[in-house]
């Protein structure tokens, strides 16, 4: 055992014997592994946030449907749904797209009834829209990217950015800004009251969706009842609006089940890039190959066995790939945590800027880290062990030439 450990230790020395070769392998592994780890970490972070979003959202989401396409539904639906057996709460919501400022910043506007808001929330800096009736400007909570791009702080006033011919345009006031480490969807969000949203979009008596909470076990029957039995005259006066339900389970079923499931495509592409890249690097460039071959010959001539020579190379590859995988993990972490995913977050989050001003969702978990190490090990090993074996399997003097 001690003998084997000492042979393995000579593998660590071998890393330093061929610094250029070791450096090339180390850097090649880093170049491939860092984006891999960052990509998987972002994907897993996003996936975790998506799951949280589904779990913490309502039990059922009801939206209107005409010609098989989603559309708004009349507010009358709120009472109709509330009357279904097993429903505990129904909240109408407006979610829409608005474009703000000279720069045409795209924002997502979400409006919910005043009563829905608590007095205070952890994830918001400043206040929430007032719960009761209060005259004055519209009250908005902004996302971090939006606030920065529009140059707004808590307390700032915004001149009217919409047209409502019936009720007139009003100014708005920023009452709060989302915390930067709230889920990334806050970045371009405007949260306000239902009436404000209705006024901004100039759509009376309509909601884009209903949030429905049910007693446990009633989700299926409630959603079937809504989809089958409820329909309303179209707000435009002709035809009818049917209702379409999305349950929490439908959403959760969309989530990839594991790293090797749908992101498997991603992983696979990386493995391929990996294999090709490093094999090409190690085998064809053959950095220090002649020197190493001679070294193997000398070791064998002085009494080393083939398996002992291979153990030395195994230890060398192991140490090299382990250190490269750990360094890659540390770099990936630094990139995501310390530099906020600078440059790479925009690849994975559509609409994110080069330097995002919100906490990029990511999860560094042991499994991808382990996978990264195994990949590095296998590749470095095939690159080194084959040539080592070729040198170690021939008589020593042949290898020494």
């Amino acid at each position, binding site marked *: 055992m001690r003998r084997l450990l000492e042979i393995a230790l000579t593998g660590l020395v071998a890393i330093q014997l061929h610094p250029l070769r070791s450096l090339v392998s180390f850097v090649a592994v880093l170049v491939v592994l860092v984006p891999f780890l960052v990509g998987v970490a972002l994907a897993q972070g996003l996936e975790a946030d998506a799951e949280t979003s589904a779990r913490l959202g309502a039990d059922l989401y009801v939206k209107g449907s005409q010609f*098989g396409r989603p559309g708004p539904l009349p507010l009358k639906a709120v009472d109709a749904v509330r009357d279904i057996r097993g429903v505990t709460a129904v909240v109408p919501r407006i979610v829409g797209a608005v474009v703000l400022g000279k720069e045409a910043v795209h924002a997502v506007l979400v409006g919910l009834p005043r009563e829905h*808001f608590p007095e205070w929330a952890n994830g918001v800096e400043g206040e929430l829209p007032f719960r009761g009736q209060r005259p004055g400007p519209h009250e908005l909570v902004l996302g971090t990217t939006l606030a920065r791009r529009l140059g707004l702080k808590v307390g700032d006033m915004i001149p009217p950015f919409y047209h409502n011919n019936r009720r007139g345009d009003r100014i708005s006031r920023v009452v709060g800004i989302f915390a930067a480490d709230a889920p990334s969807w806050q970045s371009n969000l405007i949260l306000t009251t239902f009436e404000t949203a209705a006024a901004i979009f100039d759509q009376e008596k309509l909601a884009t969706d209903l949030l429905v909470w049910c007693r446990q076990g009633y989700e299926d029957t409630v959603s079937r009842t809504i989809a089958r039995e409820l329909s309303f005259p179209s707000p435009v006066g002709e035809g009818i609006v049917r209702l379409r339900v999305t349950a929490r389970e439908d959403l959760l079923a969309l989530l990839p089940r594991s790293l090797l499931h*749908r992101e498997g495509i*991603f992983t696979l592409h990386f493995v391929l890039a990996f294999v090709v890249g490093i094999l090409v690097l190690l085998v064809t460039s053959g950095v220090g190959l002649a020197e190493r071959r001679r070294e193997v010959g000398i070791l064998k001539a002085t009494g080393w066995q083939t398996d002992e020579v291979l153990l030395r190379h195994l230890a060398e590859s192991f140490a090299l790939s382990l250190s490269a995988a750990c360094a890659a993990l540390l770099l990936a972490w630094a990139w995501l945590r310390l530099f906020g995913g600078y440059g790479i977050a925009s690849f994975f989050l*559509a609409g994110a800027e080069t330097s995002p001003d919100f906490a990029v969702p990511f999860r560094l978990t042991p499994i991808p880290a382990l996978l990264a190490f195994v990949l590095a090990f296998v590749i470095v090993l095939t690159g080194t062990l084959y040539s080592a074996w070729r040198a170690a399997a021939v008589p020593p003097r042949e290898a020494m030439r």
Partner: protein
Amino acid sequence: MESRGIRLLVVLLLLVAGATAVLVREGRAQDQRQAHAEDFHRLTGGVGFGPALDLSGCAFGFDPRLDGTCAEDFGPVPGGACFCPRHAGSVFFYPPLPGEEGAHASPP
């Protein structure tokens, strides 16, 4: 001297320790993030699911609760999968909601 091997072993162990520390730390950091996520979804009623950060490209990539399908689904592309040209390059891909695969799905 053979101490060269030992020195590298120490560096290696430090790297492994660093990586382990990062994994442990990130495991813990999730809890705080979770707390803020809870507040956010309680306030908004559950907004956001996909890799898009606004509705300018496709609503399905932002949240399939708003639109259950993407008409221009690209499917897998090298390096991942994406919804449509305006939301390319994501590794977080999900299929349309059941029953909404096509733009003209039959009503229930």
